């Protein structure tokens, strides 16, 4: 592996996971405050997360196993905020209903 490949993989990996975190944070914040603009802003980070994943998948640095793994992670990150929001609010609503 070349030094450029190591550099690219590290930076895209950092971008992928940190953007996933910001996506989750802004999405939850937008839903919490009832502000669609903040939710829409969160999708920018979702796109960045996907971009980070593509940066690792598209170049020929990694074997297919690792590319599939990163693609799978990236897909999961795309739906975590919505899924978790549903889980959290459902939990709490049920609790309040008791």
């Amino acid at each position, binding site marked *: 592996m070349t030094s450029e490949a190591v550099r690219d993989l*590290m930076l895209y*990996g950092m971008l992928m996971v*940190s953007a996933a975190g910001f996506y989750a944070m802004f999405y939850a*914040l937008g839903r919490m405050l009832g502000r669609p603009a903040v939710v829409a802003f969160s999708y920018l980070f979702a796109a960045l997360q996907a971009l980070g994943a593509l940066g690792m998948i598209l170049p020929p640095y990694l074997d297919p196993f690792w590319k599939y793994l990163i693609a799978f992670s990236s897909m999961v990150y795309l739906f975590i905020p919505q899924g978790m929001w549903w889980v959290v609010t459902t939990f709490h609503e049920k609790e309040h209903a008791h």
Partner: protein
Amino acid sequence: MTQAVPQGKLYESQKLALWYFWVALALFGAQVLFGLLAAWQYLDPNFLYGKLNFVTNRMLHINAMIVWLLLGFMGGVYWFLPLELGREVVGIRLARFAFFTLIAAVGIVVLVYLLVQYGPGNAFTLWFITEGREYIEAPRWADFGIVAVMTVFLYNVVATALKAKRITGVVAVLMFDLVALAGLYTAGMHYTPNISMDQYFWWWVVHLWVEATWEVLVGSIMAMALMHLLGTPRRIVETWLYLEVALVFGTGILGLGHHYFWIGTPEYWLGLGGFFSALEPIPLVAMVVHAVYDAGVHRMQTVNQPALFWAIAQAFGNFIGAGVWGFMQTLPQINLYSHGTQLAPAHGHLAFFGAYVTAILTVIYMALHQVRRPELPRFDSKLWKWAFVLMVVSIFGMSAAMTVAGFTQTMVERAIGGSTWQAYIDAQQHPWFQNGMVWRFVFGVFFLVSYLVLLWDVATIGKGEAKVPKEVGAHD
């Protein structure tokens, strides 16, 4: 039969917890001080050379951290357990004896580290001075002491639950975790001259003990803390705790494999370790959503502001330290070049601070509220905000500086230079590495200042004149 204490009084177990917290905070200071000395020795290797060498400072820095966090966790359990089970902890005398034994042992080990430091590589050194194994340098007698103290701790939790005839979900998780906590540490006592086998079991302590059993332990403590701090219903807290245990088993345990990449273990660890490590950040991202929800529902308001802020910092810190900084170097293709560079301590500093330090500070502030002024509608001060902001900024500053230095090592020493001796020297002399070390020290000084502010706040918050009651929007 329950043994509720009168309003405003403390259980004996809670009084013991306060001792744990104070010693933990003192050792926190020792960790910061020795870390700062080691950071300065990166810049001036001759500083204290022959008197207090870099390896000794680094060893004390790391071991102080392990012990103070462990003391903080034990204090957290002794604080919440009687509240959880509605009775005094069984074997409180034994618990006190274990506390003083542990403190005496820590004192002796520190003195030996400072005054003797090292010895010939024989059985005497291994048993009475240091094992010489990174992160678990404690001499063998101290190892047995730690296991004995943890066994007493386990006994106290189990016996109290049985006596109370009440085993909640949190307590059940805690009991199983403490069995693993006492048991897994013994893996560090397995010595073999085969370096691969030695490293194999060594990681059981460094990864499984610290990163798996501690994660569950801190999860149990935070579960109890959230019920008291925010009034989060038990059903929700326990469901999340079960989920966390499942995730630790699901990704955390086999995620250990990312430490097996390059130590001479079979090749399947590349796939196994890489797969589970790559999935590790997923639950941490999910927790960010829950943290935002909790903070939003309570509008960042509760009777105990410092505890709330440290609790929220725990969720985000865990994600950033363990998730982002962990993933950046967890794929074996990258890890081959980055392992053992300054990227590892960058990840370690953020992850330990985010996951554990914040949790213990949450519990300490909750305990202080109960001890100092339980009648206060708002437990607050101006200083804690300074300590909070300074500490968070300086830990990020330190980690960022180490990240730049580690990135330089990864590129210059490993990827470009091919790990030769000359490449090592080139990396050490590279401006990015050297500036990284300077900034690490500067932010280390900020961290020491923030620690002192925190200590002053912990010593004074809630004391003085009664405050005018204010409207609060959260459940107590």
